[in-house]
C-alpha cells in the first residue's frame, strides 16, 4: 500500500450511509450546528432580564479565587469552611491563584483531612460511618461482582484491588493511632 493523495480505506457513499443509519447527515452542514460558531452574541436568547444579577446575601465570609475581582453575585452554600480542613482551604484560596499547583494540592490535602476528621468525629455520633454500607460493597454479592469481572478481559481488574486499601487506610491508621496512644498511656502509668 503506497502513500498517495487518496484515502486508502474505502468509505461508504452518502447514499449507502443514509440507507443504513437513521438520521444520517441530519446535521451535515457544519455551519448549522448548535455550537457553531463557538461564540454567538445573542443577549436575548438566555432569558436573563437583568444586566447584572441581584446579589445573593453573603451570610458568612465566602472564600473565593483571587483571580476573581469580587465575590460572584450568586454562589453555592453547600458546605461552609470549618475546622482544620477549612483553614487549609482558606489558605489555598487566599494565598494561591488557580495557576499555582499549591492551590490545588492544598485543596486536595484538605479533602483528605476533611474525610479523616469526618470519620473520626462520626464515631462520637449516633450514626458512625459504616464502611460496609457506605461503600455499597454488598452489591458485589447481589449483582454478581465476580462474574461481572470474569466474563471478559477488563483493564480495570488489575487495579481494583487497591480500592479497599484506599478505603480502609484511614481506619487502619486511626486504629493504629488509638492503639499507640493507649499503649503509651499504659506504659507511662507503669
Amino acid at each position, binding site marked *: 500500500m503506497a502513500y498517495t493523495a487518496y484515502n486508502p480505506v474505502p468509505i461508504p457513499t452518502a447514499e449507502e450511509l443514509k440507507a443504513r443509519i437513521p438520521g444520517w447527515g*441530519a446535521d451535515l452542514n457544519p455551519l448549522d450546528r448548535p455550537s457553531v460558531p463557538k461564540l454567538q452574541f445573542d443577549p436575548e436568547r438566555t*432569558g436573563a432580564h437583568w*444586566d447584572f444579577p441581584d446579589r445573593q446575601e453573603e451570610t458568612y465570609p465566602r472564600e473565593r479565587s483571587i483571580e476573581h475581582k469580587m465575590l460572584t453575585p*450568586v454562589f453555592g452554600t453547600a*458546605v461552609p469552611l470549618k475546622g482544620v480542613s477549612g483553614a487549609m482551604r482558606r489558605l489555598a484560596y487566599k494565598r494561591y491563584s488557580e495557576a499555582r499547583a499549591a492551590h490545588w494540592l492544598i485543596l486536595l490535602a484538605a479533602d483528605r483531612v476533611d474525610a479523616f476528621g469526618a470519620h473520626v468525629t462520626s464515631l462520637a455520633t449516633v450514626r458512625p460511618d459504616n464502611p460496609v454500607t457506605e461503600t*455499597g460493597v454488598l452489591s458485589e454479592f447481589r449483582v454478581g461482582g465476580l462474574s461481572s469481572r470474569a466474563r471478559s478481559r*477488563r483493564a480495570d481488574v488489575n487495579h481494583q484491588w487497591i480500592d479497599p486499601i484506599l478505603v480502609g487506610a484511614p481506619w487502619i491508621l486511626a486504629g493504629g493511632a488509638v492503639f499507640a496512644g493507649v499503649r503509651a498511656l499504659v506504659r507511662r502509668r507503669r
Partner: protein
Amino acid sequence: MEAMVYRGPYKVRVEEKEMPRLEHPNDAIIRVTLAAICGSDLHLYHGLMPDTRVGTTFGHEFIGVVEEVGPSVQNLKPGDRVMVPANIYCGSCWFCVRGLYSNCHNVNPNATAVGALYGYSHTTGGYDGGQAEYVRVPFADVGPSLIPDWMAEEDALMCTDALATGYFGAQLGDIKERDTVVVFGAGPVGLYAAKSAWLMGAGRVLVIDHLDYRLEKARDFAHAETYNFTEYDDIVVQMKKDTGYLGADVAIDAVGAEADGNFLQHVTGTKLKLQGGSAVALNWAIDSVRKGGTVSVMGAYGPIFNAVKFGDALNKGLTLNMNQCPMKRQWPRLFEHIRNGYLTPSDIITHRIPLEHIAEGYHIFSSKLDNCIKPVIVPSAS
C-alpha cells in the same frame, strides 16, 4: 429531606438534610423526580476533584417539579415539570451572552477556570446537587426548561447532561461528510457521541473500550465498529492499520480523567493522585488521529496537571477542541432529533435505583458490575 451525602472517597450515604431554601430572588426549589449518576460523578466519588467536601450532595443530572420560586422568577411557577441543565449560569455575563453557558463568570467564586455545576464540589461553585428529594436551582428564568408534553421523562433526564455532552462532543470534532471518527469510551457520553457522529455525516464510526457489554451496546445502539483494546497489543497501531495507516480524521475523548489502559498512568493519577487523573484516552486520541486532524475532548478533567502528549499534538498539526458542554444550547436541536426518532436517549439506561440504595448504585457503576451503563436514581418523594 433525604439526600445523598459524600462521606469521603468511595463512601456515600443517604442522610436527612435541611430543605434547601431560596437564597436569591431568581432561585427556584425543585422537587426531584429523577436523577442520574454521571461518569464524572465518579471522579468526585473517587476523591479526584479538589475541594470535594464531606457533606456535599452530588448530582448534576436531574429533572423535577417546581416547588417554590423566588420573587423575580417570571418563567416558572410551582407545579411546572422541568428539566434542569447541568450548568448553572446567569445568562448575562460576557460568556453567557455568547453562548458559553458552561463558562459563566457570575456563579462560581471558587474558580475562574471552570463554570458552575450542580453537586460538583466547591471547585465548581459549591452548590448541592440533585441526588436528593429537593434542590436549589439558581437563575430559574435562565437554566430550567419545561419538559415538552410529548417527551418521556427519562429522555428529558438524559438531555440534562449525557446526551447533550455526547452530541456536543461530536460537534467539537468538526466532522465533515464521510469522515472516519474514532470514539474512545463506550460509556453513556461515548455512545451518544458515536450516534451523533452519524448525524453529522461520519463515514465510519469506531468505538474503543475494554468492556465487552458496552461495546455490544455501541454496535447495537450506535451502529459502530468496535474494538476491545485489551485484545490488541497497541490500540493506536490497530487504529492506524484500520485506517490504511493514515489515522482517523476525528478522535473523540469520551473517557476523561480516569481512563484505563495504562496501569502506571491510572495508579499514579487516580489512586495516588500524583497527577490530575489518567489521560490515557486523550493520549490515544492524539496518537490515533491523522496529521491535521481534530481531537474533541469533553470527557471530564479536573484542574490539576496531567501527563498529556502535547508535543505529538503540536507536531501533527492537530486541532484540539474542548469544553464543558453548554447543555441548553443543544436542546432545541436534540428535541428535533428525539422527536424524529434519530436519537433514543433512554435506550442506554440500565439501572433504576431508589435513592436510599444510592451507595450500591455508586459501587455498581464505579466497578462496572451487572452490565451497568447508566444508573438512574429515583428519590422517594417522587
